[in-house]
C-alpha cells in the first residue's frame, strides 16, 4: 500500500470535514422539525381542552337560561291574569264616565247649535236683502255707463273705420295705377322691341346691296377727310 502524500492527505481531511459539517446540518434541521412537531402537538392538546371547557360552560349557561325563562314565563302568566282583571274594571269605569259626559255635552251642544242656527238664519236673511239691493243699484249704474261707453265707441269706431277704408282705397287705387303704368310700359317696350326687330328684318331684306358700298365709301371718305385713316 502506497503512503499518502501531503496534498492527498489535505484533500481527504477536507472531504471528511465537509461530510461531517453536512451531517451536523441535517441533524440540526431534523431536530428542529421534531421540536416543532412536539410543540404543535402540545398546542393542539391545549386547544382541545379549552374548547371542551368552553362547550361545558355554554351548556351550563343554556340550561340555567332555560330554567330562568320557564320560571319567568310562569310568573308573568300569573301577573297578566291579575292585570287583566284590574284593567277590565278600570276601563269599564272610564267608559261609563265618558258616556255620561258625552250625553251631557251633546244635550248642551244641541241647544247652543239650534240657537246659533236660528241667529244665523236671521242674519243671512237681512244680509241677503241688503246685498241684493246694493247689487241691483250697482248693476243699474254699470249698465248705464257701459251703454254710454258703447254708444260713444261705436260712433268713434265707425269714423275710424271710414278713415281707414278711405286710406286703403286710395292706396289700392295708387297701386292699381302704378301696376297699370308698369304693365303699359312693359307692353310698350315689348311692342317697341317687336317693331324694331321687324323693322330691322324688313330693312335687311329690302335694302339694295348698293347701299353697302354707298355707306362704306361715304364713311371712308368722311374718315379720310377727318384725317383718321393710317395705312
Amino acid at each position, binding site marked *: 500500500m502506497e503512503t499518502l502524500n501531503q496534498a492527498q492527505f489535505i484533500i481527504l481531511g477536507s472531504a471528511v470535514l465537509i461530510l461531517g459539517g453536512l451531517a451536523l446540518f441535517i441533524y440540526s434541521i431534523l431536530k428542529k422539525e421534531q421540536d416543532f412537531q412536539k410543540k404543535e402537538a402540545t398546542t393542539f392538546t391545549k386547544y382541545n381542552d379549552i374548547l371542551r371547557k368552553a362547550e361545558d360552560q355554554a351548556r351550563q349557561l343554556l340550561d340555567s337560561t332555560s330554567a330562568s325563562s320557564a320560571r319567568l314565563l310562569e310568573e308573568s302568566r300569573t301577573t297578566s291574569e291579575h292585570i287583566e282583571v284590574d284593567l277590565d274594571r278600570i276601563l269599564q269605569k272610564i267608559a261609563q264616565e265618558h258616556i255620561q259626559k258625552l250625553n251631557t255635552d251633546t244635550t248642551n251642544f244641541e241647544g247652543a247649535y239650534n240657537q246659533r242656527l236660528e241667529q244665523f238664519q236671521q242674519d243671512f236673511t237681512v244680509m241677503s236683502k241688503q246685498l241684493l239691493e246694493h247689487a241691483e243699484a250697482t248693476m243699474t249704474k254699470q249698465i248705464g255707463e257701459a251703454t254710454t261707453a258703447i254708444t260713444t265707441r261705436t260712433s268713434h269706431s265707425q269714423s275710424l273705420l271710414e278713415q281707414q277704408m278711405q286710406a286703403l282705397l286710395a292706396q289700392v287705387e295708387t297701386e292699381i295705377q302704378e301696376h297699370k303704368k308698369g304693365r303699359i310700359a312693359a307692353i310698350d317696350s315689348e311692342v317697341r322691341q317687336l317693331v324694331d326687330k321687324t323693322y330691322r328684318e324688313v*330693312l335687311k331684306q329690302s335694302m339694295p346691296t348698293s347701299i*353697302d358700298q354707298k355707306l*362704306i365709301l361715304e364713311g*371712308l371718305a368722311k*374718315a379720310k377727310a377727318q384725317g383718321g385713316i393710317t*395705312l
Partner: protein
Amino acid sequence: MSLQIFDLSPMQKYLHTTNDARQMQTALQRMSEKMFTTGSITTEVLQQTLPYELATFVTRLMQEHKVTGKDRVQLQSFLTSLTNAVNNLPVVALTLARPPQVTFLQNVQEWFLRSYNTLVLLDIAIDASLIAGGVISIKGKYYDYSLKTLLDSTQKPVEKK
C-alpha cells in the same frame, strides 16, 4: 432687288382679299419648287403652274425686271421679293352685313388706290346683325358704317322718353 420696284396695282383684278393673297403665295411657292425640279422656268411652265392672270402678271414683271427663267439664283430672288411684296400689302378688315360682290370689293380697293396710292388686301367677315353697310378695321382702329349703329344711335333718345 428691293421691294419698292414692284407695282402690284395691276394685280387689282386678281388680288382682292387676304384669301387671294394666300392662294398667290401658294402658287409662287409651287413655281419655286418647279424651278428646282426642272432647273429653269419657261413661259409655258408659268402658264401651267399659275392661274392665267397671275401668270401674265408674273411674266410681265419678269420682263420688266429682266429676269430670265434660266438663271436660278436670279429667279429665286425675284420670287422671294414678290412674295414679300404681297406679304407687306396693307390689310383692311371689312365686316359686312351680306357677302359682297366682286365689283364692290374692286370699288373699295379702287378707293384706297386712288386715295392712298396703294393696293390693299381686304379681310372679309360677315355679320348679318349689321343690317347694311359694314365695319372697317385698319391697324386696330374701327370705323363703323353699319345701318345697325345708325339706327341704334337714332333710337336711343326715343327709348329714354
